[in-house]
């Protein structure tokens, strides 16, 4: 009987620990892979001029009129980071694990916008806006790991390629 209790005890303690360890390992793998992917894709769109002012700087008339484009992404925070975040909120201070996920979500959403700009033949993006959407209905109040939804929009247009754009 003692053995059964021991096995059951190990199971009760071990399963949550195993889940956390699994979430941690997968979370690190997924975020590392995503960051490597972003670094690669950023090179491909580095020539696109992007700014968040409403004026279309150095605009030239192109084959198509300027157009608004949008993109969105939802990232989940893995349970290990969510657990860390809750733990951290007892003491206050920076929650680095959330900061990193937010940062990746923003990079991804801007990247999708730039890739669309590029695919449609434009070479500049004005008035970049980044917003957050709370689609899971105040996840923080429900004490679970948050889903982070980021929306971005901007206006794609043409600039003269030999104008004041140092990267081209």
């Amino acid at each position, binding site marked *: 009987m003692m053995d059964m209790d021991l096995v059951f005890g190990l199971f009760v303690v071990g399963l949550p620990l195993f889940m956390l360890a699994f979430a941690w390992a997968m979370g690190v793998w997924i975020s590392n892979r995503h960051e490597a992917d972003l670094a690669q894709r950023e090179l491909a769109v580095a020539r696109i001029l992007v700014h968040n002012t*409403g*004026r279309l700087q150095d605009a030239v008339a192109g084959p198509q009129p*300027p157009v*608004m484009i949008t993109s969105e*992404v*939802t990232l989940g925070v893995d*349970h290990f980071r969510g657990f860390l975040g809750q733990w951290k909120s007892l003491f206050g201070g920076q929650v680095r694990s959330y900061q990193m996920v937010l940062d990746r979500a923003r990079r991804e959403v801007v990247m999708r916008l730039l890739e669309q700009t590029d695919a449609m033949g434009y070479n500049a993006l004005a008035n970049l806006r980044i917003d*957050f959407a709370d689609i899971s*209905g105040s996840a923080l109040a429900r004490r679970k790991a948050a889903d982070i939804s980021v929306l971005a929009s901007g206006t794609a247009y043409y600039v003269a390629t030999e104008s004041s754009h140092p990267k081209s």
Partner: protein
Amino acid sequence: MIVVNTETIPGYHVTSVLGIVQGNVVRAKHMGRDIAASLKNIVGGELKGYTELLTESRRTAIERMLSQAQELQADAIVNVRFSTSAVTQGAAELYVYGTAVKIEPIVQASMVS
């Protein structure tokens, strides 16, 4: 219809302002997506179901705004803005609004800076 989120459109000038046009949509996630997302959420990473939900919602809201602009016989919508709000748990509103205007192409090539 030209739709931009800037105040001006290069190559065109605004001849008259017709007013605000808007579109909104409230969407809920369905259970299947919710379950799939909660499994994916254990390890983190992109929740594609929710991303698609947002993309579809945004498209619907923009279409509604466009049909309003067409009723006003507008040529373009400028200064488009989005906002979202969580109406209840599991349902979100996506709201898009902009200014419908009449435009004319600028004739002489005075665009070169």
